């Protein structure tokens, strides 16, 4: 069952690279977080620890409900062109992601040799998610995608942490959750200001500021 969920996260991560529009990307992120929540819940049920349940609930609240809603709200508010602006077309992005995953898989096979398939899969998926988040930050034009990319990376790190050591300490998790939320809000506000000042949020055009 965990394997199934992990594969779901993987598919959604790849699907993010095919997105052409901002709302689709946010929706994708929401779904990815939902799957992450399910993985955590599954983990919590198996561990029978109250703390993990709370972390899962926090995940659901922050990443599935609050942040995506906030981002959607932001998109509506700044009324920016919905298209993401791709530096690399979807097919090439996918091929790049394939190579990232390949590298991750080879690395993990070396790292956790002879461990069960679930552990291996969790490793590969989490590293892929981190790398793809990074990829999205680098190869998409709009500032909003940088936020989403960051959040995706955070999802990956969360998954990695819970697959290595059964999760981070409870307080760390909570702090990270709030941290991420605050981070999203601050960058959102920042972006709002950028849009006000420059009437666009395309990062590559900020080089004009060099003077």
């Amino acid at each position, binding site marked *: 069952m965990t394997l199934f969920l992990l594969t779901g996260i993987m*598919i959604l991560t790849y699907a993010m690279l095919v997105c052409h529009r901002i709302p689709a990307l946010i929706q994708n992120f929401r779904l990815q977080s939902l799957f992450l929540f399910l993985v955590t819940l599954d983990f919590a049920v198996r561990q029978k620890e109250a703390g993990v349940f709370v972390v899962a609930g926090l995940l659901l609240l922050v990443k599935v409900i609050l942040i995506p809603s906030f981002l959607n709200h932001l998109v509506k508010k700044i009324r920016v062109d919905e298209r993401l602006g791709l530096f690399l077309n979807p097919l090439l992005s*996918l091929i790049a992601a394939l190579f990232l995953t390949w590298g991750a*898989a080879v690395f993990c096979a070396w790292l956790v040799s002879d461990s069960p*398939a679930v552990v*291996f899969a969790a490793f590969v998926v989490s590293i892929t998610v981190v790398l793809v988040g990074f990829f999205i930050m680098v190869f998409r034009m709009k500032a909003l995608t940088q936020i989403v990319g960051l959040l995706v990376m955070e999802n990956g790190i969360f998954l990695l942490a819970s697959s290595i050591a059964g999760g981070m300490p409870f307080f760390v998790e909570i702090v990270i959750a709030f941290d991420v939320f605050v981070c999203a809000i601050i960058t959102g506000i920042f972006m709002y200001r950028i849009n006000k000042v420059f009437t666009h949020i395309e990062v590559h055009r900020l080089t004009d500021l060099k003077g």
Partner: protein
Amino acid sequence: MKIPLLLLQAGIAVLAAPLVSGFVRRVKNALRMRQGAALVQPYRNIAKYMRKEEVVSETASWIFRWTPSVVLGSTLAALMFVPVFSFSLSAAGMGDVLSLFFLFSLGRFFLALAGLDAGSAFGGMGSSREMFIASFVEPAAVLAVAVVAAHSSSSAAEPLVRSMGMSFSGMIAAASLFMVVLAETSRIPVDNQETHLELTMIHEAMLLEYSGPSLAMLETAAHAKQLIWFSLLGAILWPWPIGSSSGLSAVACAAFFVLKIILCAIVVGLTEIGLAKMRLFRVTDFLGLAFLFSVLALVVSGLGY
């Protein structure tokens, strides 16, 4: 010999197949908060078509008249290749999953010809697009099945009837195959079953000139083909030791099979609700993703997972 049993299985599958389509429609309508048609609506449609008279274009040739038989006949033959309930003719050494794909392409070939046969531009457009999509489906599908077969280190003959346990590579291959299933059953990101708008329809465009019993045959074939794909997907996603001979386990297998089909139908319905139809030339991206998942499955399977 298992042949009478196989015929029985094929017969039951063909009769039950419209129910699956009806169920997917129910799922979609429930999600849209609509009343929707009854579960048995596909049967009603078919029964109605059977009673209607048939109109054939004056430009059409024998290809047009024989195509419904060829399409349904090849689907019937294909039904013997998949582990529907508990046994498949592949066990009798008739062929393997590859032959199944080739049988599908036989039906598609004739359907595309029939689309051109009536001389209407709609049919030709449908044929062209169907063949276009099929060409990009094929590599992803073949590779996904090959990876699963190789991973279970059985032969290509019956990779799906053996118990192989759940594996990560199998899951990824199933993801690829799921996208293939969406394309092959003309579902939303690729095609749309619910529309007859000339700019968007693909599969329906080829059937546009058909009426009466011929249309009934073609619809039945589409339902049966969907069932075959679902059961293939189910077998890969959730392999179950199929093929034991005792009566009780056969019943259990059948029940489990029904469960898997229901799950597939729900997931397909959810996907259709959640996605919008893609432009034709973005379908290559979609199927490219499917192909990539197959390759990924191969990589992971090469590492032993």
